[in-house]
Structures are given as structure tokens and as C-alpha cells.
């Protein structure tokens, strides 16, 4: 007999109707504690709206969100971290001040030095938010999402617009957060990203989940009879991303 996993998050029958557009059409899924769940789909599929309903920043037309078996409320806000697809931060405020401000909004607090080290922000602490590059900004937004030692972290298309080097490093960062025990909900339209990071994925289109399962299981179900398994270490042609990373290195730049 196997133990039933604890569900960190459950979305039940979420619906969001905008005038003339049914953005989310009865979406339900559950995320076991300590896993990384990916919500995939093309642009306009309803991923971001679904996640924003769960995060509590968009009101659903109907449906409920449960956090560890309870309707998501004050505890949910205290124990979750969110990185939105695009968030402006205050002008004229430094990285350190931004982190300190968000840190002060929570009762449950992470060790800021650890978050700064984890997100490689040590050299940027006194820099104005407006002067950060795309990758630095994403790391800061992730750090902001971690200032409360979240049990559940939402990452909404976190690597959109980043160069291959920054993406790889961001993935490593997400892996490290997961290793610390956090549950992760990731939306992305990069399939390689979902493959590397997610234990389970749901693919959305036109506001509905069209399929759900582990990446390997989904591939096997669909292409089982057409797949040739190769030894780990895959055989493929080098691509431009390999060339870019070979020439510029894998390490993160401040």
C-alpha cells in the first residue's frame, strides 16, 4: 500500500469569463508537495490567467483553490512566493531596498543573505532597479519571491527574453529551490525548460487542459510505438545554443 501524497495545491473547476472570451474553461489539477508542476501551452492558452486566479490576484468567475486542503487565504499569501511574467519595481530604489521592503511584508522570513547568495545578487545590492539587465532583473524578481521561505513558488514564464546562458543558470537556481523542499508551479512555453524542470506537466489550449502527466509518460503514451530509446547522453546534432554556450561559457555574469 502506497501513501497518498500531500497535495500542496488543488485547483478545482476554475472558470474565468471575460466579455466575449472564455479565458479559463473548467481547469482542475493538483500539485503534490515538493514537486515541480508545469503549465504549458501556446500564447493565449490561459496559463497566466489560471495561475493568477490561483495566486489570488485575479478573481475567478467560478471555481476554488485549495492550499494544503484549505481554501487559499491568509496562510496561502504568507507561505507562497510569486514571480510574475512582468512586474515593474519601484524606481529610484536599490536591489537591497527592494528585497528589504518585500521581506518586511511577511511574518515568515527567509535569511536575506542566503537568498541574495542563492540568486547571485551580492554584487548588485546597491544598484538601482532601473539599471538591471534582463537576467539580473529576473534573479531579483525570483529573490523577491523567496524572501518568505515559500513552501509554494509560482514562476510565470520566468526565462522569457533571457539569453541561453541566463536561462541555464535560472534553471539551476530553480533546481536549488526545489532541493530545499519548495513546491513549484511553472508556466512556460519552452518545452525544453519544462522537460528539464518539471515532474508533471499539464498542456493547456483554449482555456482547457488537453493533457496531463509526467513528461516521460506523456511522450510514451503518444509516441510509444515510434520511439527509439538511446543511451543517456543523447545523440543529436549540435545546435546554435551549444555554439553560443561553448563560446560564452556557462557561468553567470553579474
Amino acid at each position: 500500500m502506497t501513501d497518498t501524497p500531500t497535495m500542496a495545491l488543488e485547483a478545482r473547476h476554475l472558470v474565468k469569463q471575460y466579455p466575449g472570451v472564455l479565458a479559463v474553461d473548467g481547469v482542475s489539477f493538483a500539485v503534490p508537495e515538493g514537486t515541480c508542476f508545469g503549465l504549458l501551452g501556446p500564447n493565449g492558452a490561459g496559463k497566466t490567467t489560471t495561475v493568477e486566479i490561483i495566486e489570488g490576484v485575479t478573481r475567478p468567475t467560478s471555481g476554488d483553490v485549495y492550499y494544503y486542503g484549505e481554501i487559499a487565504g491568509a496562510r496561502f499569501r504568507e507561505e507562497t512566493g510569486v514571480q510574475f511574467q512582468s512586474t515593474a519595481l519601484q524606481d529610484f530604489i536599490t536591489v537591497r531596498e527592494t528585497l528589504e521592503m518585500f521581506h518586511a511584508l511577511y511574518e515568515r522570513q527567509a535569511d536575506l543573505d542566503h537568498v541574495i547568495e542563492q540568486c547571485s545578487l551580492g554584487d548588485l545590492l546597491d544598484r538601482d532597479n532601473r539599471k538591471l539587465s534582463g537576467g539580473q532583473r529576473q534573479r531579483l524578481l525570483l529573490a523577491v519571491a523567496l524572501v518568505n521561505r515559500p513552501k509554494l513558488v509560482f514562476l510565470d514564464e520566468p526565462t522569457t527574453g533571457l539569453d541561453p546562458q541566463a536561462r541555464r543558470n535560472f534553471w539551476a537556481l530553480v533546481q536549488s529551490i526545489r532541493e530545499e523542499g519548495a513546491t513549484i508551479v511553472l508556466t512556460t512555453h519552452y518545452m525544453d525548460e519544462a522537460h528539464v524542470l518539471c515532474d508533471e506537466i499539464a498542456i493547456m489550449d483554449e482555456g482547457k487542459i488537453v493533457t496531463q502527466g509526467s513528461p516521460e509518460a506523456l511522450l510514451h503514451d503518444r509516441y510509444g510505438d515510434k520511439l527509439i530509446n538511446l543511451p543517456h547522453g543523447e545523440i543529436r546534432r549540435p545546435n546554435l545554443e551549444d555554439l553560443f554556450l561553448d563560446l560564452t561559457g556557462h557561468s553567470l555574469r553579474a
Partner: protein
Amino acid sequence: MWRRIYAIFKARNREFMRDRASLSWNLILPVALVFGLSFAFDGQRDEYTVGVLQDAAEVDTAEHPFLDTKYVRFVAYDDLDEAMRKVERHQLDLLIDFGPPTRYWVNPTAPKGYFIEFALLQSSSGDSDLVTREQIAGEPVRYADWVLPGILGMNMMFSCMFGVGYVVVRYRKNGFLKRLRATPLTSLEFITAQVASRMVLIMIITAFVYTGTHLLLDTRMEGSYLTLFAVGIVGAISMVSLGLIVSARVMSEELAGGLLNMINWPMMLLSGVWFSLEGTGETVQLISKLFPLTHVLDSARAVILDGATFGDVAPSLAALTLLSAVFLGIGAAIFRWERF
């Protein structure tokens, strides 16, 4: 709760204080206006103003032909002390009570009082025995003395309304509010932090501008600085609260700008920033009482020019507090974090 409010308060203060262009504008504009207006208008009041100790409309003009005198504005008063103080300050050229017996008060050091007295005696058939003359001495209130509270109040109004209204709409538009929404911060905590931040900043700026102008122009101060400070704080809260109503739901900065101007301009024109509303119609005076700026200016001028005490301005402060409570209640009830 207080830690969260303080965190938002501190961050907003830093954002404002480090925006040098905006800060400079908040300091330079009011000083420049006071200097410019005092230079342009000091002593330039063309019309004669006469106070009448009963409603001029009720006085028989056939019996008192003085009321038909051209180029004289007659303003009704029912409070003798207040009207006499205006004569003392040269804000009224002459005060008359048709009695009977007819009495009038004039300031012998006021040049315009000297001439309007001639007109009065002329209309009394030159028989000075028909009227009783009383003298009131006192230094004039210069236009700079009078307009300084107006400019400071106007600057406070623009800074409070735009400084909160516009900023909150910008935060909503660029997604910063949405990010805060995903934290334990409540809308009441956010609004409190915004009100507190703007109140502190505008009080510092106003105190700075007032001190500078007071020292440079040697403006009048008859009352207590503490009372004036209380008027400033209560006034700032009421105007920030009004700005919050505008910003509670609006998504576009252009719309917010339009709405804020739609409130600010009538408020500025009908609150007596530039010129006194004395003698204007009852409707105008009634409308003006709905604007917080009117109560701020009436109280500030009473303290600065007439030495009013805290007790004297308490009714205006109560009106401002009531307006703030109404504005804040509406603002918090309709406030939205998200864009849609």
C-alpha cells in the same frame, strides 16, 4: 501590520526623495508663485471694498445713496469684530452700519479709506453730523501675506492629489500593485502607507517653503505655528484621501490626470487661493465648503492673519476630518489592485 505599513511608507518616501526633478519642482513652484504674485499684485486692488453691517440688499438705497456709488464692492457682514479686523488689516476700505444711527469705521493710515470716506460724506450731502466716524488703526495685510497660505494650500492640493492619485495608477498599470497583492499586505495597509508617506513629505516641503518665504518676504504670522501645523496635517490627509478615490480603480494615467484636473481646478478657483470669495453668491460659497482646500485656507489664513486659536479653527478641522473619513471610506471600498 505596522511593519508592513512602515516598509511601504519608507520605500515610497525614498522613491519620491530620490526623484530630484519632481522634488525640485515641488519646492520651486510655490516659492516662484508667491514671489511672482506678490510682485505683480501687491497694492493692485483696483476696486474699493466697503463692509456693510447688514445685508446691503435689505437697505433702502433711496435713503442711503452711498450704496449706489460706482466702483465700490459692498460686502455684507454680520460679525462686527471680524469686519473691524478687516478694516484694521486694510482688507476693507471702510465699514458702515446704517443703524440708525449710521456709523462708519475707517483706518486713517489706509489711502483708499481716505478717499472712500470722502465719497461717503459726499453722498450724505456733505453733512458729516449725520454719520458717526470711528477710527481703527492697523498695518495692512499685504497681498503676499494673504496669498501665501493660498499658494501653500494649492501646492499641497496638487502634490497630495497627483502624488497619490497618479502614483497609485502608475503602480497599477505597471503591475507593481499586482505584485503587492500577492503578499500579505492588505489594501488598508497599502492606503495608510500612501497617505502617511505623502502627508509627511508634503508637510516637510510646505514647512520648508513657508519658512523660506516667511524669512525672505517677512510675512505676517499672528497665530501659533502648532495650530498652523495641525491645519496642514489634517488638510493634507483630506486631500490625499480625495486623490485616493480617483486612483482607486482607474487604469490609465491619462484618465487619472483628467479626473484629477477636473477636481483640482474647480477646487482651486472656488476655494479662494488667489482672491477672496467674500461677496460672491451664496451658491458659490456653499459649493466651496465641499472642497477641503476651502477649509484649509480659511483656517490657515485665520491663524496667520488673525491669530486664530486651535479652538477657533476647530470647526474647520472637524469638517476636514469628516471629509477625510468619507473620502477614505469610499477609497478603501472601491479600491482595486488589479488591472481589470
